[in-house]
């Protein structure tokens, strides 16, 4: 079945690229790999009958947010991680703390597996319910967004205004204030 194969391919690309994002020393490569991961995720959104989310993922995430990250990395011109001198003396390196952290990580994995097992319709096919043409149309998304979620939508505009003012204020040089 081609769509099952495509799901596994794109899921593997998303997970593999995200792992490599964590593994890179150079943040430039990390950003490029994260863009690949976002592309694979947007393919998964198309499989979930959400083409508008997939396009927003590419345009907003890969197009805007990642370019912002790239811009900052180029602006700061400090590509390599200067970890060596901190790594040896880092508090997380102490054996007791490291053991506690490993225990917390194991707890997180147990919790995630438990939550996944407890979801009742975990084996149900995703596309079983709902009308595909209705779910994937921008018209129905827009209707719900501007009726049921209109307050959250307006609150989001204030959030963006505050973020814009905050970013300009934080990044401005001290003598310009």
């Amino acid at each position, binding site marked *: 079945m081609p769509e099952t194969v495509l799901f596994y391919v794109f899921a593997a690309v998303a997970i593999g690229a995200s792992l490599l994002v964590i593994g890179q020393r150079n943040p430039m490569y990390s950003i490029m790999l994260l863009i690949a991961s976002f592309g694979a995720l947007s393919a998964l959104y198309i499989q979930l009958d959400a083409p508008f989310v997939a396009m927003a993922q590419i345009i907003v995430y890969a197009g805007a947010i990642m370019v912002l990250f790239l811009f900052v990395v180029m602006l700061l011109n400090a590509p390599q991680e200067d970890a060596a001198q901190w790594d040896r003396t880092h508090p997380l390196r102490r054996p007791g703390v490291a053991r506690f952290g490993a225990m917390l990580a194991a707890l997180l994995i147990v919790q995630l597996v438990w939550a996944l097992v407890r979801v009742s319709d975990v084996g149900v096919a995703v596309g079983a319910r709902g009308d595909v043409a209705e779910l994937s149309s921008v018209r129905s998304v827009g209707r719900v967004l501007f009726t049921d979620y209109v307050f959250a939508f307006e609150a989001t505009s204030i959030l963006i205004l505050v*973020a814009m003012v905050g970013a300009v204020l934080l990044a401005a040089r001290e003598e310009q204030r």
Partner: protein
Amino acid sequence: MIPLGHYLVVSAVLFAIGTAGVFLRRNLITILLSIEIMLNAVNLSFVAFGRAQGTVDGQIITFFVMTVAAAEAAVGLAIVIALFRHRESLNPDAFTSLKW
């Protein structure tokens, strides 16, 4: 068709990768990227749950998460620029002025 559980497993793995990145990496830019991975993992499970329920609500929550992610990236990167200007470093261990 693919079962809902497979999407949730992908989402959980991506979230775990993002968490590991936040804790293991010592570079502010990479930590912000790991937070983006975690937000995307949550987006994927929102859309998958919404599709499984047959509603568009999951997609709409995803838009709000994307907006918050954009605001977070803008403010976070502005803070990174301001910190780099003071300390000439992106290592979070270099910023200890507020540590007791």
